[in-house]
């Protein structure tokens, strides 16, 4: 779903603030569109809920990594001390659980952190240095001060709407919500070609 929604947008609209973006998304959702993605310079409160994106399940990966790291470290220490290289130090027990805890804890934290970083990158579809949306004029402000919404190709509501009148209606609705620009990206064009530009632009 992540890839599909962002790989080939057909409609994109630019807003100047988070609240305006939320209004625009409400307008699109009002026309029955569901395959929406948003690009924002920082997290906008309420955006995730509005788009129906659930809380990440990444924590489960992190938990698994923590258990594996901690468990593995404990087992390794036990094996070193009890099986492979037992050293009698003042008659202390070979299996000394309290002495194994610091390394067990540290390895659990280390593995969990590595898992958190890698999962955030991989689940976010990264690393992926190029993306079709980067070809859109002015999209470079999406990391600075502009808020974009995109409707992905293959949205179930699109075929019914996507004619001349439908486009004008949606463009008007987005404009009323505060869109600075509304771009219809012609699906026939190759989005991976540098010459790819919006086919119709409504500057307000």
């Amino acid at each position, binding site marked *: 779903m992540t890839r599909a929604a962002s790989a080939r947008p057909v409609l994109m609209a630019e807003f100047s603030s988070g609240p305006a973006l939320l209004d625009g998304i409400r307008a699109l959702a009002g026309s029955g569109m569901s395959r929406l993605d948003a690009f924002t310079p920082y997290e906008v409160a309420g955006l995730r809920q509005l788009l129906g994106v659930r809380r990440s399940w990444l924590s489960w990966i992190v938990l698994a990594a923590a258990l594996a790291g901690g468990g593995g470290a404990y087992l390794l220490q036990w094996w070193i001390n009890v099986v492979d290289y037992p050293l009698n130090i003042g008659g202390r027990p070979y299996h000394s659980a309290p002495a194994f805890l610091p390394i067990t804890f*540290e390895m659990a934290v280390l593995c969990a952190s590595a898992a958190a970083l890698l999962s955030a990158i991989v689940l976010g579809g990264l*690393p992926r240095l190029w993306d079709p949306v980067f070809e859109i004029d002015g999209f470079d402000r999406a*990391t600075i001060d502009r808020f974009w919404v995109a409707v992905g190709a293959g949205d179930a509501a699109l075929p019914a709407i996507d004619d001349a009148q439908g486009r004008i209606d949606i463009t008007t609705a987005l404009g009323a919500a505060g869109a600075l620009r509304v771009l219809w990206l012609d699906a026939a064009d190759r989005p991976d070609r540098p010459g790819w530009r919006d086919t119709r632009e409504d500057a307000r």
Partner: protein
Amino acid sequence: MSAPAAIAHDTDDVLVGRPSDTELSDQLLSTTWRPMTRAWKIGFAICGLLTLNLLVMVTLTVLRGIGLWGNNIPVAWGFGIINFVWWIGIGHAGTFISAILLLLEQRWRTSINRFTEGMTLFAVMQAGLFPLLHLGRPWFAYWLFPYPSVMDTWPQVRSALPWDAAAVTTYFSVSVMFWYLGLVPDLAALRDRAPSRTRRIIYGIFALGWRGSVRQWRHYHVAYLLLAGLATPLVLSVHSIVSLDFASTILPGWHSTIFPPFFVAGAILSGFAMVLILILPARRVFGLYNVITPRHLDAAAKMLLITSWIVAYSYIAELFTAWYSGDRYEVYQQIVNRPFGWYAWAYWLMLFCNCVATQVFWSRRMRRSPVVLFAVSVLVSIGMWFERFEIIVVSLSRDFLPSSWYIFIPTWVDLGILAGTLGFFGLLFLAFLRVVPFVPVTELKQMRAEMVHEEVRR
């Protein structure tokens, strides 16, 4: 940034005025491409020279052996371990600010968290150098880690030293990962904003193609909070484990259960002092008065005051425990040798710097005066260095047998390496200021949006 807005808003806020996203981005990203100021260049040159000096001293040490250092039996842990503990302690404030204060939703953390995380990384790098060199044969350092060696031996994990290796390695790795994850959206902003094509390509590679899509933010948000949650126990555990190197021995002055919390409090005290030493000049050189406000200074000063009292309490508790234990060696060490022995001057200097000088921060005016903050922070850094000197050198120089008593005097190589790490730390830090935005732009813009939202609702 915008003067009229600054007047209209409370200057006591964590953000002066309400600059727009555009203004904030321009101001904070431009620290990486603005022309270098003269102060920065001079600082860089001095630190570069000191780093060269470090290189020479380390080379000498590796070539000739640690006989060049002043430590010898019974003071086997001289400057090497003092500097290790001091540097690693400094790192703790960075993690405290970036992780614990994030979970506690303290807004004054936002402007300074990247800065202090950088400080953590560079301080831990200096710290790591010392145990490595102190091994005497640093090329065998990998023996500390468990690997299936042909010698058929393994590290002794029931000893505190391999715990230390695990704790410091984990601390450094987790700090790097936390720092990098926080940087990704800002690197993407630099990819889109930096003035030259080369810079855009380099930042673009490190930004990994970040688009800020809602699905990326979804995972990013949880991962960032989790990393903060994972870094939080490290603030407490790393220095606790370092303190176990001491506390698990029977040496008078070391054999004490108060060591873990005592070390952690001291670490945060010295760390906040270093934060202030670095942030006051950086704020001035880059003109960041609107994002690093008196409010931040005030909060950091209060942390200095609080941790200084915890440290003072620990000093008193050490004296009390020694007296109450009735152990003649402890009593001699804590009540006779430290305050009145050969190194008495170091004890009183430590008390003055760590417990007396910080008391000026009861005054609100002092908490907001950059000059006072800087001066006291320098004193605290010195005081915390001498605290470790007290613990390590003074305790070791007077152990059970008077026949083995010894006075430790550092050599010029000891002093050269300490100065060298200060320079190397500074060099890395000055480079960091120019390579990435050291005030987290993305987080600051989000905080501003939240603040505006709250103000509209009010």
